[in-house]
């Protein structure tokens, strides 16, 4: 069954279709919420509120094929509300632990890359939430600028501006922490 059919059936009140959509997107939603809020428990709250709103307001979705973007729109706005209420700092050891997975390299390289990863992660977390959301949607989710504008309900120019500012801050953070000279179009 296609996602569009599931969405259509959910809009007709079929709870089982909602359950399937939840299964499909629950972890992706959690990870995105976590990256925006920076807090595990808050991100579960965000996912909870998001899926409750998805079910209760699914009839307001006009284009059934646009379910994921619509859900992301709800999730990001919910994350804004939840994430803004708390400090986004992660304990350093937690960052190090996360950065320590999946890198098949020498110990020295691993230490260097861990530090860099911490610096990047810290720089992303230090961004204002609206810039961080754009960074998460652009780099982690792989959305295009126009898609992000749709999700955030703002102009493409606003997304470009936030992304540009975020990139500058990330680059500045990397350069000051590691003397890394980063290049590329900003």
């Amino acid at each position, binding site marked *: 069954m296609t996602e569009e059919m599931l969405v259509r059936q959910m809009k007709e009140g079929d709870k089982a279709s909602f359950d399937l959509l*939840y299964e499909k997107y629950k972890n992706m939603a959690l990870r995105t919420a976590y990256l925006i809020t920076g807090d595990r428990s808050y991100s579960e709250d965000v*996912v909870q509120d998001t899926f*409750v709103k998805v079910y209760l307001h699914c009839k307001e979705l006009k284009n059934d094929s646009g379910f994921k973007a619509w859900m992301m729109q709800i999730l990001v706005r919910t994350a804004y509300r939840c994430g803004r209420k708390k400090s986004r700092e992660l304990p350093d050891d937690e960052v190090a632990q*996360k950065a320590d*997975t999946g890198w098949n390299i020498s110990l020295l390289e691993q230490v260097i890359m861990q530090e860099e990863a911490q610096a990047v*992660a810290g720089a*992303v977390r230090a961004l204002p939430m609206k810039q961080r959301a754009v960074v998460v949607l652009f*780099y982690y989710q792989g959305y295009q600028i126009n898609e992000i504008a749709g999700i955030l309900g703002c102009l493409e120019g606003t997304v470009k501006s936030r992304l540009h500012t975020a990139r500058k801050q990330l680059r500045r953070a990397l350069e000051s922490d590691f003397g890394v000279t980063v290049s590329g179009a900003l």
Partner: protein
Amino acid sequence: MDRKENWEDKIKDVLTLECDGLTVSQDLKDRIDEKILTSQEAGNMRHLSWKKLVIGVVAGCLLVSGGVFAAGHVVSVSSHSDWRDGCKSYSGMEQQEKKLGYEVDSVEQFTNGYRFKKAVVGEKEGRDQEKNQVYSAKFMSIEYAREAEPTVSLYIEKPVVDFARTKSAEAERICGGINLYYASMTYKCVPADYELTAEDEVNQDKDNYCISYGSDQVEIQKSSVVDWMKNGIHYELIGFDLNLTADEMFDMAEEIMGTK
């Protein structure tokens, strides 16, 4: 690794590592289903009047919170009443008190012109995470009206658990050895897709400001509440957008207590 060319790829890698392996907890779906159910019930009530819902359910938790809440046992509270079972004249209060099971303080008319309009006895219940009923209790709701002004409700119940005050009052008065507490709350009900303004973001950090999602349009109203406990019975005098000061509401409370 070529840092010059890959710095933006590194962002994606780091973000992926940051949340790698994160999965939702086992009980999240249960919590979602529970909240959907509660919201649907609340939504049905909201079609009648979301203000009544606030009076009947939220207001009960606004100033005080029971031990079962603090212990985290109760995850949902619902209440229901049917005005067709109530009375529309003060002479019917005796019958309502019989339904409630105990006598309560009330007045037919306040000196400021508010008059008895109707009263009803309803039931309220709390459920735990497994949807088991943790408690149920009867309550009485009395409505007072003054010309075309917003109505004032008197919400009465015997707490089924030890209550502890969780919100600080904006004003207090002691009357006959009983403490009266005044508090206000601004509710902004907004549609599900509403995007918060900068002002909303500042406001929602305040203790007395609540943004609630799910209404058809943006609606802002301010509730005012005076509450007190007498002979083991909890009283809440509450209304929305009232033209009454805290002192005037304290005076009404004193009239209800029979000390004014």
